């Protein structure tokens, strides 16, 4: 087994694949799974259990076959400071965007200068991605061949996002400008933050035991009711080149046992991808995990294409233009669609290629 830093894991793994020397089994992110499928580097597996979160299993499905076994899942919920929310006059976070917006405005009135109701780092795209997932219309269309950011639903999400900054409910900063997120939140610098399960462990690590009551989690609000969130996570894949396929499959089965899944949570704070382990302590008893369990019932997977990372990066930069550059939502989304269409040109060409025929060269100008 080799430990890889998450940030460079994809590059290392792809290099190993390119060199024809991959491992037997690897844990890969959902985002990278499609890349490995595209590369024909991994083999399909049969699901090892029947109680996976459906969306997590769906993420691993390509052409009707499952190419990975979901190992842990990850979604985004609200982290917040209950005491501050109470002082602002609310019992719990709102379930709708409009309600939440009122709460944020109310919270802002009782904060000190320099403090903000919401932390939404402008270089993190997940929050905007979650906002975009609320509507059924995807940000890509025609089988993920074209960008669909100019759709009314995404524009509505972006308007909501922009408004948070325009009303000074969130600071225009990047996560690089944080000193220590958990310490800063405990001081009341930010009252809400949208983040994933790893932060449960981080809050417990960075804050003193007597300060643990300061924070809580809640499911995401939506435009009209309870909100959907993204689902991401990690899957165990078996490489085509592996010469120990049966052993690899046995290993994957072992890693998915309830006992192992609970241990994984205990060790890393990663949430099990099967419902089974959630009936055991501490997963069943931890109040702060409740929001995740609820949220995992309302998630929306993102398109399974290798360009997704680049598209989300482009979306983030477009959002920056809107939030700090003063570019109009209409112009920004139109331009993003043009750029996404350029990035997806290769994919369109591949999909439209007929067997035995050469492919048209794709060289375009980037808008």
């Amino acid at each position, binding site marked *: 087994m080799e430990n890889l830093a998450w940030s460079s894991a994809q590059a290392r793994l792809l290099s190993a694949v390119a060199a024809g020397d991959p491992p037997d089994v690897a844990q890969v992110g959902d985002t990278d799974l499609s890349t490995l499928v595209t590369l*024909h580097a991994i083999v399909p597996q049969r699901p090892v259990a029947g109680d996976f979160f459906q969306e997590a299993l769906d993420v691993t499905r390509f052409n009707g076959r499952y190419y990975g076994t979901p190992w842990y899942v990850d979604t985004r919920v609200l982290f917040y400071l209950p005491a501050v929310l109470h002082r602002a006059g609310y019992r719990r976070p709102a379930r709708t965007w409009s309600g939440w917006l009122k709460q944020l405005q109310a919270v802002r009135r009782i904060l000190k200068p320099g403090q903000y109701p919401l932390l939404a780092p402008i270089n993190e795209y997940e929050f905007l991605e979650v906002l975009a997932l609320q509507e059924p219309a995807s940000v890509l269309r025609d089988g993920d061949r074209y960008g669909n950011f100019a759709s009314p639903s995404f524009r509505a999400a972006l308007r909501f996002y922009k408004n948070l900054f325009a009303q000074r409910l969130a*600071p*225009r900063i*990047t996560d*690089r400008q944080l000193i220590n997120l958990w310490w800063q939140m405990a001081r009341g610098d930010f009252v809400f933050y949208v983040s994933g399960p790893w932060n449960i462990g981080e809050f417990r690590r960075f804050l003193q035991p007597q300060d643990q009551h300061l924070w809580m989690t809640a499911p995401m609000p939506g435009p009209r009711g309870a909100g959907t969130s993204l689902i991401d996570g990690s899957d165990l894949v078996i490489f085509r080149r592996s010469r120990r396929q049966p052993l690899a499959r046995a290993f994957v089965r072992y890693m998915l046992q309830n006992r192992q899944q609970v241990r994984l949570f205990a060790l890393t704070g990663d949430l099990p991808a099967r419902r089974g382990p959630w009936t055991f302590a501490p997963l069943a008893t931890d109040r702060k995990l409740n929001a995740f369990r609820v949220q995992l019932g309302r998630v929306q997977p993102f398109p399974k294409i290798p360009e997704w990372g680049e598209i989300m990066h482009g979306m983030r930069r477009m959002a*920056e233009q809107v939030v700090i550059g003063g570019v109009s939502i209409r112009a920004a989304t139109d331009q993003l669609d043009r750029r996404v269409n350029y990035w997806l040109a290769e994919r369109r060409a591949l999909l439209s290629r007929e067997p035995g025929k050469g492919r048209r*060269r794709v*060289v375009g100008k980037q808008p």
Partner: protein
Amino acid sequence: MKSLTALFFILPALLLIVLFVFVPLIGVLGLSMTDFNIYSLANGADLHFIGVANFIHLLHDRAAWQGVETTMTVVLVGVPATLALSLICALMIESISARWRGLFRTAFFLPVVCSTVAVAISWRYMLNTRYGLVNRLLAAAHLPTPNWLGTPSLALLAITVVVVWKGFGYGMIIVAAARREIPDELYDIARIEGAGMMQQLLRITVPMLAPTLGLLALLDAAGYWQLFAEPYVLTQGGPMGSTMSLLLLMYDRGFRWWRWGVASALAMVLTVIMWLFAWLQRHTRAVWRGD
């Protein structure tokens, strides 16, 4: 026989250079004329020779031009600032008593030997909007406390400041050494003729140091063109791409999005620019030396 011996000694270095410089360079040149991307990795048939299309693409790429503008700004602002600071500090440490000289020299040179990443991380904390030292001092002086790394123009300024702060110590040591080479008699004559401090600086010190300053300007400019670690750590190229240097852009295109064709084209452009600096340095050396 003699040349054979010479060859024997040169060969290892030559082999290494060929292996690790020329072979990769030719590889990159080759890649820059293809559409190598994530799909090409999956299927070799998806790799095509596309000539200079990547370079033409770069000509129309707004991000690339913004990268040029960003990098140029750092060079055009950073190099004169570095030279001025190097010169001022060199003259300062040469004029103070020997007891304090070592202390100041060490203090000014320290950033040069520090790891760039460590330096950048420290600056990230110093520039923090709410808790950073910079804004605390500004607040204490009742001045506005800007969002340094979150505002496009200020972020680039902050990056430039960090780059200059990191680099001026090196120039200072060189300038100080060059200053010591100027005979005292040149200043004695100037004093007898009645030249004041400012006249001595402008008529003697600066012209006498011009060759050194010229060389440093080229070295600094070449170094700043390869700006990478500071924006990578401080801003990751943002906000709004305002600190996306050419090298960082290349890294993003290649290592993050696997568009190796375009990234290689960008690498070639950077290589040519570096060659230009090397050529300039060779051909102006005579001028700087005053031969």
